[in-house]
């Protein structure tokens, strides 16, 4: 694909997202707005994996570890400080630092793809077990009780920086989440167009060759993984803020497999794909949840299998191919 077409596509997508951000609150009722807010937060999460896996070629099966870590960091900080700004920043930093630490062991140990996927998945599952067992008064961080599998309810929601009494209303929250989504999307595009981004994609294509050309493959992968962890943490913070609630389910197998499905369905190696995949699957999950027609896991499993076996490229790259051929 030529560079010009690439930019054209991403500018169109950005414009569409800005239009949706500005237009939707005028036409949608409160419930729809809340729904779209969580969809947008999840889109950020999908983008984080789309970047790490689709461009960095890092098989991360545990993106929800960083998502959950972000959510819990926000929850604990917001409860302790009674305001949200520091919590939001920490929700970016803590998962990024954890990702860097984990990434150091994985990339500098030169673990292969399969090992990477399995380690990241195991880390998530162990977080899940760990948080589930924090019931009781002994498990608290400052003023915040972790509450085990019951989760932490009534978290302070986002406020205007510097003014803890002035909370954001649903429309403002939606603007904020959409702004984050646009910033992440555009930011990743700019990053990928930079020298760093090109090296990252080159590493995905041929690791040995990049190494022989003198690039530090391990460092690049580590940075990609860290950035992805930070973005996932941001999504986690927005998600926790959305429901004013966080529970160990953010680390669950269901959560982490959903992220993988979004990216698989939407398409690897694009930034638009994960967003589209996330929107489709979120809509489907909501519909299945309200209608009780079939078990969500069952349907997701079938869709997952169908895409891996029949449409391994995912929706967006497949459509793009069709469009190019036509």
């Amino acid at each position: 694909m030529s560079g010009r077409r690439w930019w054209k596509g991403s500018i169109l997508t950005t414009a569409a997202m800005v239009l949706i951000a500005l237009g939707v609150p005028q036409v949608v009722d409160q419930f729809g707005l809340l729904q779209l807010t969580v969809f947008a937060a999840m889109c950020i999460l999908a983008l984080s994996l789309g970047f790490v896996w689709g461009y960095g070629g890092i098989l991360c099966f545990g993106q929800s570890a960083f998502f959950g870590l972000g959510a819990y960091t926000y929850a604990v900080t917001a409860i302790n400080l009674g305001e949200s700004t520091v919590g939001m920043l920490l929700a970016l930093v803590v998962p990024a630092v954890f990702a860097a630490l984990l990434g150091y062991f994985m990339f500098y140990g030169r673990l292969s793809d399969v090992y990477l996927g399995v380690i990241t998945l195991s880390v998530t599952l162990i977080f899940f077990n760990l948080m589930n067992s924090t019931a009781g008064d002994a498990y608290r961080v400052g003023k915040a009780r972790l509450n085990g599998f019951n989760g932490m309810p009534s978290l302070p929601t986002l406020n205007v920086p510097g003014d803890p009494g002035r909370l954001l209303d649903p429309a403002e929250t939606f603007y904020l989440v959409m702004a984050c989504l646009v910033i992440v999307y555009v930011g990743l595009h700019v990053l990928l167009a930079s020298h760093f981004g090109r090296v990252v994609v080159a590493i995905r294509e041929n690791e040995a060759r990049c190494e022989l050309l003198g690039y530090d493959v391990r460092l690049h992968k580590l940075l990609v993984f860290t950035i992805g962890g930070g973005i996932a943490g941001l999504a986690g913070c927005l998600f926790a803020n959305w429901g004013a609630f966080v529970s160990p389910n953010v680390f669950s197998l269901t959560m982490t497999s959903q992220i993988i499905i979004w990216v698989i369905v939407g398409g690897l190696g694009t930034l638009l794909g994960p967003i589209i995949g996330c929107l489709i699957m979120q809509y489907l999950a909501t519909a299945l949840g309200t209608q009780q027609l079939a078990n969500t896991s069952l349907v997701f499993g079938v869709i997952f299998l169908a895409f891996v076996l029949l449409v391994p490229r995912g929706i967006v790259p497949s459509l793009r191919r069709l469009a190019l051929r036509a």
Partner: protein
Amino acid sequence: MDLAAVLTFEILNGVATLVLISVGLAIIFGMMRVINLAHGEFLMLGGYAAIVATNHGVNIWVAMLLVAPLVVGVIGVIAERLIIRVLYGRMIDTLLATWGLSLFFIGIVTTIFGNTVAGIGAPLGSLGVGRYTISLYRLVLIGIAAAILAVIFVALRRTRLGLIARGTMENPNMAAALGVSPPRVYATTFGVGAALTGLAGGLLAPISGVLPTVGAAYVAKAFITVISGGTAILAGTAAASSLFGSINQLLTYFTTPVIGEAGLLAAAILLLRALPHGITGKLFRGSL
């Protein structure tokens, strides 16, 4: 003294549990270099098979030792035929497909049995050791884990099938040139791996109970054990299980089970930093 005996028993028990839950995965990984992400669900299906059979009047030992592995083995062979076979050589797609399979199994079992815990009582009683008592059933589990490793060793070393399996593992192309059909070997491997996993699921059902998502409780440990063990099926599983089982049980004894599990993971990550191809990538090379 009694305490030391009980602690030793706990450690052996931890090791045996790890051997049980990971040996089926290790066989599939060692032969096909594929991690079966539906492994936890195979354990779960084995548990349900044992419980359903027991509730229908089948003797509990028959249910655990025969019905569970048989049912899951058949499911494994079918899954291999329909899904895994299509993706040979595409390792990452295979991983993803088995993940889809795992969700599918969770969904279908939830639809049939509901999202509740099912269980059966553990057979046998307990044994007094001084001031403590230990469960006889757990003692039997240690014996079964050892027996499984012994049987696999004999099967790989002394039988014709084992020879073919080892040959295919070493060099599939050469084995094919000599008239062995690698796809057939892989199918058998997958079936045997699934059956052993079903056996483990059946044996653990009386201890932990079963619910559709129970797999998640086991898989993390099983994955860690297998990849830290490396590709040698027996030496890898035995070495990694002994190491992590001891760490897990000792930490569990002195702190909490969850710290034990987290310690197991931390130990594995440190170990893989030093030995990226697992224990048998460096030590015991060329062993089974």
